[in-house]
């Protein structure tokens, strides 16, 4: 049976930083903690990264299970196909988000067996107490995924929220409407607290929540300051590593462990810069990962870029923070209100800048900012076929960038986040080779 097949695991990717090298064991430990929590009867919440719920979950001592991450792990281990096929067998469409498809395949299998599917990657994903959906606007499947999972776990309650933010328009100022958004978000978060209190028998400790929010604010600042160090030439850390360090950024927000990780990363990057220690000894091209989730099963492509003299000092993917001190947040005593303001101000951070450049948008402004700050020679994006919410806009962004800013060499890779059948290493590397040729041609002009 195809479902029983376990493919050969890919060799471990070489990382540039010690910090990125710690991530594998960290993720493994987090999964083990979930399984242990299950045995100890602690509440487990299926959760989505960057839903805005992190601090609440942590303050209530609920154990988060990051379902997108588990699908990503299956992808990294090149062991997602059997779960994708399982979900397809349940009649879910192949064009659905493959994180969702993989997760639903896993859940349906675990529920059918009453135990983990055979030989699950890193021990498997524990059955949750609650599922916290999030319609955070970049990703529509996050509304429906857990509702679909309820087919297999009808006894597990779902909370579906979704924190909105003012959309960008050239001819209006978000400040006119921001108060409405803040009020709405606060109500959504309060609803989440009530839901969790009801279904997990935990009471919110509001003092504890304030402390957790303070830790996450400091983590936002620490991440920003550490990542800013990558402006150095030679660059001490690339996007390949950032696809690892997204773990503490997204899965440990509001924890001391997450904050400490980025303090350590900051110190390590400082050390590397002092020693002029780059990702590669002879850095020829500096590239921006301009959008799209990576192919988790092909992170070694970043090393292939390195072998051609190219490094990625910056990426827009998984850089989900700005320095809090730059967001001009009002002083409020309610931690939920603080979270709401931080959310709205993060998403409107580049509105003013975009309005000054006709035809631009906040997303395009971010590309321009990184191109200038990180001395970028070219932009690489990845269109993952199953990530419908984000990737269709990438080409448009690239075109706008070239229209309102300058004609910069670009490469659009095509594959998927989890579905390895969409990937062809030889074709991908042929494209990278050709892209390197164009970078060389542009540089030598």
């Amino acid at each position, binding site marked *: 049976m195809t479902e029983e097949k376990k493919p050969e695991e890919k060799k471990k990717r070489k990382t540039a930083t010690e910090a990125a090298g710690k991530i594998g064991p960290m993720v493994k430990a987090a999964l083990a903690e979930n399984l242990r929590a299950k045995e100890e009867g602690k509440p487990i919440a299926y959760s989505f990264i960057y839903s805005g719920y992190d601090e609440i979950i942590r303050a209530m001592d609920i154990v988060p299970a990051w379902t997108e991450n588990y699908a990503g792990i299956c992808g990294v281990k090149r062991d997602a196909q059997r779960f994708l096929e399982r979900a397809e067998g349940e009649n879910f469409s192949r064009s659905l988000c493959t994180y969702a498809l993989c997760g639903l395949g896993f859940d349906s299998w675990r529920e059918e067996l009453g135990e983990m599917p055979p030989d699950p990657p890193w021990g498997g994903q524990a059955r949750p107490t609650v599922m916290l959906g999030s319609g955070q606007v970049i990703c529509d499947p996050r509304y429906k995924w857990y509702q679909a999972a309820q087919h297999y776990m009808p006894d597990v309650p779902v909370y579906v929220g979704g924190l909105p933010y003012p959309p960008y328009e050239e001819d209006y100022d978000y400040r006119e409407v921001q108060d409405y958004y803040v009020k709405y978000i606060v109500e959504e978060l309060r609803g989440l607290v009530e839901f969790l209190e009801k279904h997990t028998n935990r009471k919110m400790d509001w003092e504890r929540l304030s402390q957790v929010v303070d830790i996450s604010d400091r983590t936002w600042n620490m991440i920003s300051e550490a990542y800013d160090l990558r402006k150095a030439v030679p660059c001490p850390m690339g996007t390949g590593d950032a696809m690892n360090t997204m773990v503490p950024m997204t899965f440990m927000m509001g924890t001391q462990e997450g904050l400490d990780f980025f303090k350590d990363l900051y110190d390590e990057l400082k050390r590397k810069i002092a020693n002029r220690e780059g990702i590669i000894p002879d850095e020829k091209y500096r590239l921006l990962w301009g959008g799209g989730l990576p192919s988790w099963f092909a992170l070694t492509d970043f090393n292939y870029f390195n072998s051609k003299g190219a490094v990625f000092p910056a990426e827009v993917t998984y850089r989900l923070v700005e320095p809090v001190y730059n967001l001009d947040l009002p002083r409020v005593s309610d931690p939920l209100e603080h979270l709401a303001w931080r959310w709205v101000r993060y998403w409107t951070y580049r509105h003013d800048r975009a309005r000054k450049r006709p035809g631009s948008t906040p997303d395009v402004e971010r590309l321009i900012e990184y191109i200038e700050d990180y001395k970028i020679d070219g932009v690489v994006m990845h269109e993952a076929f199953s990530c419908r919410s984000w990737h269709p806009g990438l080409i448009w962004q690239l075109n706008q960038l070239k229209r309102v800013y300058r004609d910069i060499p670009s490469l659009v890779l095509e594959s998927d986040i989890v579905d390895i059948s969409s990937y062809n290493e030889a*074709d991908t590397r*042929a*494209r990278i080779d*050709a892209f390197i040729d164009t970078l060389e041609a542009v540089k030598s002009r």
Partner: protein
Amino acid sequence: MKGQYFAGVDIGSTMTKVVIMDEATLASVIGPTGPEHRKLANRVMEEALGRAKLAFDEITYVVATGYGRINVPFADRQITEISCHARGIAHLLPEVRTVIDIGGQDSKGIKLRDGRAVDFVMNDKCAAGTGRFLEVAAESLGVSLEEMGRLSLEAENRVEISSTCTVFAAQEVVAKLSEGAALADIIAGLHEAIATRIYGMVRRLKIEREVALTGGGAKNIGLVKALEARLGFPALLPPEPLLTGAIGAALLGRDIVKEAEEKGEKLKISPRRLTEATLFT
């Protein structure tokens, strides 16, 4: 560079091309790419040498390109087809700023500045938008690939082919035939469908005139006309569109040798042997 000879070997997914040049093209050979690239590269090279009346050890430098470029054991250097096409077109049609290459299994757009590729787009994921699309359709229609272009010009009432997938388009073609649509009208519809896909991809580059069409697709007059209609102006065609990459490869070989001579550097040259490669060589 008098007395020096350069070879360009372009192993595409469907056709293998070899060009031998000194100051001008001395010989060229085009043959089908089979599953055994290395064996075929040897044979086509041998034939080209025969036509140029040269022994292999008289060739100064060999550059391989195309998707099978790593399977040319006698090449001195492998260079991407993007760079080779750019170099080839810059030599053949220097006024060109955008190249549209329609190959057997992929299609690409290349933006040129000062004779070098500065941006590109590529479709290698889906057969629709490549020569394979027409090949499959020709099989369904019982028409040879060579006839397709000419027949499409006879269309009076072009049929809309709505399927973007090659497999489904082939089914749609059969359905249109059974509905009584004229062969020429269906073929014109197929050309329109492929031109739409290619144009949609290449326009990401901000197309600039002049535009050259290369690859096997450029030998299909129906496809050329459909693309020109999309572009809104006539495209330029090299004398033999299939040879652009191989000519570029030979010219890049010449550039490499010239630069090395100017710098006084010694280039690494592969053994000039055309014995059949085995798995262990």
